[in-house]
């Protein structure tokens, strides 16, 4: 343990110690602070230390901060993630708590949320995510994270090469009752605004005569972190593959919308389908790289969204995890291996 000469409070260590335990993210036990002001002063005094450790570990876990409310969280966010990003092309129901603080997701407790990098399908995405636990669930509910450099290393070369060469395709089908409506996803009721957004953001779109919307986009699935230059697996290929749904749900959705009308579907952009076996390989790579902590009230998790994917474990009991996103990064600055495009080749069924 070292003491920084410039520390405001000589009794408090200015540089945190990071514990690296098997299966856990890099974690520090925050020194006891009486007030949030002191905690924020300490965090802002850490300077480039946090950035360097984040680049090294991909995610940092702070245990023991006096964060108890959305307002407390917003203040810490202003220190750690100064440049906010709005939540666009929404894919999960979230509640906004105001001041750009959201519920992490409103999806029901019993549902696990698979690994993903936030907004990997948009042209600009948050570089940083900050999670905090305001109410710890009775059971489960961790926010697991995986280092995507590690994920990439663990994937079979064939899959990596297909992704590097072709990228991945996402098709979405917005309808009245399932998932997020287009009005909510695009935050407008004006079709022309949706069309403009899609044109500006390399998304193809088509309206159904029943008021539904279908969009498609091609994105690179392997990018480099602009700060570290590390290559990472960065996509929603597994997350939104219909193979990720259980059989009942996949069949019910297919009954309801037809095989081409699922709310979400992904494929490699080489026109070949993404198979159930390939999904298993991708999930195995994520699983091997995944670490997690059980949330305790006041815990904070800072995630580099390019280096690290995140998910959610199912839980029981009350749980309030808030999230803020910031430090936007342009895809163009991430050395994509294929250019993003609006048009995708239709995957063979």
């Amino acid at each position: 343990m070292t003491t920084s000469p410039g520390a405001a409070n000589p009794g408090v260590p200015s540089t945190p110690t990071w514990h690296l335990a098997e299966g856990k993210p890099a974690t520090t036990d925050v020194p006891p602070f009486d007030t949030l002001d002191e905690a924020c002063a300490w965090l802002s005094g850490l300077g480039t230390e946090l950035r360097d450790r984040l680049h090294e570990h991909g995610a940092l876990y702070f245990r023991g901060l006096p964060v108890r409310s959305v307002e407390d969280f917003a203040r810490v966010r202003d220190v750690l993630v100064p440049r906010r990003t709005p939540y666009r092309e929404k894919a999960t129901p979230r509640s906004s708590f105001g001041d750009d603080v959201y519920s992490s997701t409103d999806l029901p407790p019993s549902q696990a949320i698979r690994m993903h990098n936030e907004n990997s399908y948009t042209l600009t995405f948050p570089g940083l995510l900050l999670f905090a636990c305001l109410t710890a669930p009775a059971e489960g509910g961790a926010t697991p994270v995986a280092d995507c450099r590690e994920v990439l290393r663990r994937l079979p070369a064939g899959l990596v090469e297909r992704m590097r060469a072709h990228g991945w395709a996402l098709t979405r089908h917005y309808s009245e009752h399932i998932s997020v409506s287009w009005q909510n996803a695009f935050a407008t009721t004006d079709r022309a605004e949706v069309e403009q957004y899609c044109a500006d953001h390399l998304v193809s779109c088509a309206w159904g005569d029943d008021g539904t919307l279908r969009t498609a986009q091609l994105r690179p699935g392997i990018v480099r972190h602009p700060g570290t230059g590390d290559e990472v697996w960065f996509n929603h290929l597994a997350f939104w593959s219909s193979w990720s749904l259980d059989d009942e749900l996949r069949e019910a959705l297919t009954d309801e919308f037809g095989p081409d009308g699922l709310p979400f579907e992904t494929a490699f952009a080489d026109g070949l389908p993404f198979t159930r076996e390939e999904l298993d390989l991708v999930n195995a790579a994520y699983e091997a790289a995944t670490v997690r902590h059980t949330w305790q009230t006041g815990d904070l998790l800072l995630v580099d969204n390019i280096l690290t994917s995140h998910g959610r474990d199912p839980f029981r009991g009350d749980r309030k995890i808030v999230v803020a996103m910031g430090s936007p990064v342009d895809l163009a600055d991430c050395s994509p291996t294929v250019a993003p495009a609006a048009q995708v080749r239709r995957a063979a069924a």
Partner: protein
Amino acid sequence: MSTLHDSGTGSTDNGGTRTAHANSPTRLPDPLARFRQTVADAPGRLAVVDGTARVDFAELDRRTALVAARLRARGVAPGHRVGVSLPRSAGLLVALLAVWRAGAAYVPLDPAHPQDRLASMVKQAGVRIVLTDPEAGTAWPAGVETLSLNDADAWRSTAEGLAGFIGVAPADPAYVIFTSGSTGTPKGVQTTRGGVASLITGLELAGAYDTNPRVVAWNASISFDASVQQWARVCRGDTIVIVGETERTDPARLRELLDTHAVDDLDLTPSHWEFLRDSLLTPTADGRILRLFMGGEPVPPATWQELAAARRRGELEAVNLYGPTECTVDATTAWIEGDAPHIGRPLPGVVARVLGEDLTELPDGTEGELYLSGPGLAHGYVGRAALTAQRFVADPSARGERMYRTGDKVRRLPDGTLAYLGRTDRQIKIRGYRVEPGEIEHTLTGHPDIRSATVTVHHDAEAGDRLVAYYVPADGASPGPDALREHLAAALPPYMVPTAYVPLDAMPLTVNGKTDLAALPEPLDAVLPDGHIAPEGEAETLIAEVWAEVLGRERVGADDDFFALGGHSLLALRVVARLKKRMGVTMRVKDVYQHPSLRALAHHVGTLTG
């Protein structure tokens, strides 16, 4: 005595007595004579559309001839009865026409009915041959021969020389359709070929059937005689579009089917209209005006006004059809116009009388019982001479003629139309099905733990009509609702199994010693420990199980709201998937959103499976 009856287009004689064509010597063409004419006139016209399969009249004629020849080779002849147990399809149309072509009558045998009931129907109707799909796995009583339509080669080999049309007389039987019987056994109504001919001509003369060939949806089960006014139209050259179970129960898909095939005419029960309203009120893209044939149950005033308004706006037109099975489908008809529901005027050929208890004619405006006569009159109930004599009585105004006592209370309005006022007996309609409470009571008292039983229909604004069984247990016995439900389900079709079971110490009696129906208590809903109402009946119980599973709850009440309990779209999908698997009901997620309470969803499921 003045004889009141007749259609708006009928003649009025000088004596002020409105005379019908009932006893007209003019012989109407048999439906198959008209079919033969259509085949000759328009062999290439589309006769039936079944999914992607399209069959023209020449091909339908050819297929029908093969099956008829096979039936004749088996000895089937006029007066015989042939069972038909097939799903709605082009093949079913072939089977029905073929039975007629062989001169015989068909007997619908729905494999969804309990085994005992099917056996009873087969026995009563003397069925020896059943046209069916052997893959369906129905066990038929010993001695019944099954023939498959799919056995194409076998058909062909016997076709030579037997492909012609067998001549039939108007009095030869056309079909036997079973309805609920008050004494505990279903009764088979046997109608005639002349009756069907009269129905088709009557509907044509009344304007309900258009002069030109139309495209007609076939959505009724052949166990329902409403199916006859749909499928038999093929004989007069209309095109029949098969409505599968999925389309029948899914408004969007039904609408798609109607538009894809430019369907002109669609049959509905008023309950079904509630479910299809939004979809059917959307104007057609090609500008055609959909014609709805409403039947099976009285049209409620609100529905009447809604349909009348839609007609005024030129969006659709609707005709109200009334008639007991005993008079071959339809006896009266009315365009749905104006404010108040009525059943209109008799079809040409039908004589309608409003009589008092002593069979005397009542003055216009007086409530009385409706008696019907004419060529549409059925032979009666097969093998039930006493029951036939009770309902088909001698017509005091016409020597040697019979009239059918409908049990329906009516009043003739100043404009000559008839207003329907309810039943004189206890017969009830539940989701369009005609049910005799006596049949359910008879079956219920067959349970060793039951001393006596009364079944009534209970009207519930939210959940719709439901059957309620009141019972007095045998000494020392206390049978539970599940046991009783199971007992009834083994003998009766699902729509006849009550949803609520109320034990009583004794039946309330009138001064005459009859069960005092008015004094029966309201069925109280059993209350769950959390204050919610316990689910009742098969549908509610099953849906409650599924909700509890997907919502992760121990129990769910009949008055619970899916979304208030944490339901959302993906869970709604799971509900749809599990109900499909367990109840065979095809729904969309939208249905769960439109019927958020458990009881409302159960009722909706009932309209889909009913």
